[in-house]
């Protein structure tokens, strides 16, 4: 009984709970989940292990998710998922979303980044022209300083209503 959480000592739980603003209960649940996903018990998640979640493997954004979640250990796993908890700050959520879109990691969400995301989402169903038009429209909406790219500041400025953080909530309990 309780064998599932035996290797996670209570100090660790408390520390992680403090770091991530989650409750110890949620940490324990995530630990069980992590152990289930980490089939070979290596302590980190491999792409193959992520594929074993059918819903995830079918998701069009799976390649991007793998880039983010591949080879994370439990501590990082908690850190990533805690962003989507109710108690996580708006900044943390925005930061995650921004980094998610910024595929080439140059600090800007450019039209190349967006086209890549749209290509994942829609496959080859949209023409190059449509892809460009859509990405231009998305950038134009957020590009406050009109330099053709969305910087982190632009991104925060256009999200004054907090829509992003409203959307980024999942249940971890």
């Amino acid at each position, binding site marked *: *009984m*309780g064998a599932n959480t035996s290797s996670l000592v209570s100090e660790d739980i408390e520390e992680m709970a403090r770091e991530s603003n989650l409750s110890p209960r949620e940490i324990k649940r*995530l630990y069980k*989940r992590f152990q*289930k*996903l980490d089939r070979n018990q290596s302590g980190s998640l491999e792409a193959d292990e*992520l*594929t074993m*979640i*059918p*819903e*995830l*493997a*079918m*998701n*069009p*954004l*799976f390649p*991007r*998710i793998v880039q983010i*979640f591949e080879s994370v250990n439990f501590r990082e796993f908690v850190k*990533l*998922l805690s962003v*989507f908890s109710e108690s996580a700050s708006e900044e943390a959520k925005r930061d995650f*979303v921004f980094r*998610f*879109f910024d595929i080439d990691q140059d600090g800007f*969400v450019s039209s190349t980044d967006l086209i890549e*995301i*749209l290509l994942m*989402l*829609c*496959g080859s*169903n*949209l023409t190059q022209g*449509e892809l460009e*038009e*859509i990405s231009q*429209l*998305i950038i134009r*909406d*957020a590009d406050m300083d009109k330099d053709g790219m*969305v910087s982190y500041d632009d*991104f925060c400025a*256009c*999200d004054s209503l907090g*829509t*992003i953080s409203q*959307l*980024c*909530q*999942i*249940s*971890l309990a």
Partner: protein
Amino acid sequence: MNASGGGDDAEPERDPEGQLELRAAPNAATEPEVLPQRQPSLSTGGRGTLATGGPPGHKARSLRDAHRDLLTEAVASIKDVSDVGFLDDELAKDRFKDAINVAIEVYAKQRELDRVLTDVPELKLSTLVPYLVEPVESIADDDFNKCFESLESEPWNWTLYMYPAWLVGCFIRYVVLFPARLFNLIFATVLTVIAVASCKILFAGNKQKREHVEGLILTLYAQAWVASWSGVVKYHGTRPRMAANQIYVANHSSMIDYILLLGVHRFAVVGQLHPGGVGLMQTHLLGSLGCIWFDRKNVKDRDYVRKSIAEHVARADKPPLLIFPEGTCVNNEYCVMFKKGAFDIDATVHPVAIKYNKLFADAFWNSRQESFFAHVLRMMKDWCLIADVWFLEPQTKRPGESSEAFAARVKQLIAKQAGLKCVSFDGYLKHVKPSERYRAAIQTQNSRFFRAELQDMRGYLKDDESKRNSVLWKREQRNHFLRALNQDERKT
């Protein structure tokens, strides 16, 4: 015992193309029941998905069909008045045409039904956010694996007075009950092996007689197994009988399902052939029942199985055929997709619902975690196994009903009786990766949304006031229509 493919009796019949018939709506996380007949409708993370809140089902489906029929009719009659000359106002004409087009569009794209759009067309970074939340959500928790999770035991014994009680219980279970049960089972096994072997010699010339007697012995043997778990099994409904053209289908949690049923009546089962000791029992002990064994991974076996099933079902002197259409062990809380193989054959289907009470023992065989013998021994150390088995009213395919629809209907009956939650996942996904086709289907549907939104944006961004209004009006109509429809569905 093998751990990889092992563990599950499986239903062989699946067409190679559609082998991964997973029709799950990731968005239906809160409402796992998905229309069984709906085509791989993977509703992506559009905003405000109304339909997922409602309880879809057959009624909702037929309502939707009825709506569509009415509309098709309406549209057809309007085409006769092709110039819409009966409207004087130009704007009214446009709007009328638009309204019809919207309706057609809605019905042409089933999946789009779920999405309520924003009033004003928009393409923003926030439009993309739900698409990224969705996969993260399935990392945190996914519906598929929930179907195959063993019972979590909550510690209850860590109080001063419970602890001694628990110790005494442990002593009884491990030191008194377990050896006695194990001894009984071994004794019964030895007796059965001797009896079956002597049958083979005694009735060497009379095959029919031999099979009959062996069947009786096996029924007794199955009862010895049930006794080894102190099984308290209640059987409800009409007991099975020998007859031609009948198939018994049941939900599946463990190989012991078969043992429970074998305790009431002889059954021939269709299932995965296991290596090792289980395999020996399958081929030698159960040989006389005419069970059909196959290898799930071997495509060639499918034709053989299909033929054998048909041959078996046609004969009245063979024990009734038992099939587990889920094709894999589920944890007895959910009911995954029924594969259509058993429902393709023109036979009366007798649904059997099996529900285990998890108070004292978890009967789910998680083949990833434990071998079959470990599973059986574990239950022998538990207090007892409580189960209900319902033999439900026989069902036949309705005129015009497809095999898939029939399978789904029988599944509903079983799930309802056993109190299981219906999900539409294909249990085979436990063993194989989902095919690329599913992702492609989602991508096609996503692209429809983005293209439609782009077109609206183009119209909306024009300087033309009437163009802009017509876009807004179209969206308003569409959303109004969807909301009404979704409300209707929820009522039924």
